[in-house]
């Protein structure tokens, strides 16, 4: 069976930045326990080592730049943008670079984002981001299905 990691990241007290962790908490109950689900405030280098042991990695984050609530999904690869490494927290692309450079292995990796509306201190998602939650969960579950990682398929492998 393929090994998969889901990481929802963002600050849980910065309004819509909590989108990633919120999705991860809900997915934890919806996916098979063999799929590793993590939450964190930001991506740090140690995650590269965990990624190197995976076949599929799914990042879930919020974003800026579009209308609030807009969902974006893309497959990601390594990045040559050196400036991505200049803060405590890394981007998914730079983690892919760490993973490939240090461990010689690259999982298939995807990022799901939703555009946030408010990042002020708050423990609530705004309405447009809240509305995106079920749609992103559905898309993530569909992606897992495509990789033979639906709950039923994982159970049949067990």
């Amino acid at each position, binding site marked *: 069976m393929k090994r998969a990691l889901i990481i929802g990241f*963002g*600050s*849980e*007290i*910065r309004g819509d*930045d909590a989108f990633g962790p919120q999705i991860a908490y809900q997915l934890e109950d919806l996916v098979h326990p063999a799929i590793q689900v*993590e*939450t*964190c*405030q*930001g991506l*740090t*280098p*140690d995650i*590269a*080592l*965990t990624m190197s042991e995976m076949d599929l990695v799914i990042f879930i984050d*919020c974003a*800026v730049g579009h209308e609030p609530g807009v969902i974006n999904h893309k497959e990601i690869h390594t990045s040559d*943008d*050196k*400036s*991505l*490494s*200049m*803060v*405590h*927290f*890394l*981007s998914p692309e*730079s983690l892919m*670079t*760490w993973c490939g*450079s*240090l461990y010689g292995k690259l999982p298939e990796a995807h990022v799901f984002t939703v555009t946030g509306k408010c*990042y002020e*201190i708050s423990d609530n998602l705004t309405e447009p981001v809240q509305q995106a939650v079920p749609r992103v969960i559905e898309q993530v579950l569909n992606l897992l299905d495509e990789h033979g990682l639906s709950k039923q398929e994982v159970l049949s492998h067990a």
Partner: protein
Amino acid sequence: MSRTIEIDPVTRIEGHARITIKLDDGGNVDDALFHVTQFRGFEKFCEGRPFPEMPSLTARTCGICPVSHLMASSKACDKIMAVDIPPVAKKLRRIMNFAQLTQSHALSFFHLSSPDMLLGWDCDPAKRNVFGVIVEFPDLAKMGIRLRQIGQSIIAILGNKRVHPAWMVPGGVNAPLTEEKRSQILPMAEEALELALKTFEWYKGQTSNFAEEIEHFANFPSMYMGLVTEDGELEHYDGFLRVIDHAGKILHDKVPTDNYKDIVGEAVEDFSYMKFPYYKPMGYPQGMYRVGPLARLNVCDKCGTPKADAALAEFRALQNNSGPVTSSFHYHYARLIEIIFALEKMLELLRHDDILSDHVRARARGNRSRGIGIAEAPRGTLIHDYEVDEHCQMTKANLIIATGHNNLAMNAGVKQVAQHWIKDGKIEEHMLNRVEAVIRCYDPCLSCATHAMGKMPLHIQLTDASGKVIDEMTRG
């Protein structure tokens, strides 16, 4: 014409900051200011919350050292409850804190500062980053990752969660340590100790390459503050505050943490949102002190574990055993010693007879209107000071974070570096690298609740005395 150089933002630190270097008419550095331009309203956000929520709430201020906030906050809540928590709970809290210290120091040393040290401040900026380290020193990069992963894994095993574990609670911890979990943690801690010792041995051989930086990276007399045990040993969880002067003379000792306001005052400046704590008996700004790994090793009499004490003797030899180690460059050295200490102590605690006891939590309602919790975070002394009303709801919270204590010293450090490396108004890349690097020695965490956008280009502005931008450059 006098000029102002601005470096905005500072890279590889948390939050948003800017450095302004003011040149005099002769092109020499007149002054340097480290601005923190982001305002946090977190303390206000806490008002009205039931106090037992505070540990998990305040832990969310930081993605790197949430355990420190969890711990200081839990201790403040213990005081409000007026309970003495079970001894095993204290040990378990300490173990989690040591795991966090390990992962946080590893991140600072390997990820943030190693590009400067390994590749050099004069290296092409396109290569002087962690990717350069990965290419040139892959084994070292892997060691750093593994150390951090072990620290994070131990936190996850204890708290069932990597980043914001809710295991540490007012009154103790919410579940005892099982034999199964202890068996998982022990070999990881042993492996991490080996890695830490190996890194320390390697690093000692590197320090001679940094003589000029050691001499001029915030290398000045100051006071130092940190927790120590009753016997004067290195302490991160409990104990008493100790303050020493530039020569190592103890100014204040065995200060109960509840009395921190006797020695710590807070000043404000209009150029920064970050407060400027100072040693109260000396006044502001003369009362500049440093906290964190360098300060902790300077204030303690000894570490209290064999390998860390051996390393401490070498640390003190850096200053010819003639007083506190004064160069902030040696924060890096001190971090490695603290990792060794944390892992030795962790192993000692895990092997303690009663560590699997299930008496790990005291229960009570709020019995006092105020609680102060102080612990040593990776970056220094962390203070949580709470007040509650008769309904046990928060009416006031004051958080003095570790980075804040170092604010005066960081400003003085930037000025010293700028004065040494900027001559005749000539601005070069290597000088700017060093100005940033002196800040990174303190590993500041300015606003951990900030959403990291993943990209923080370096923006440098040169303005004249009227504030008009006459030159600017963006890097990254």
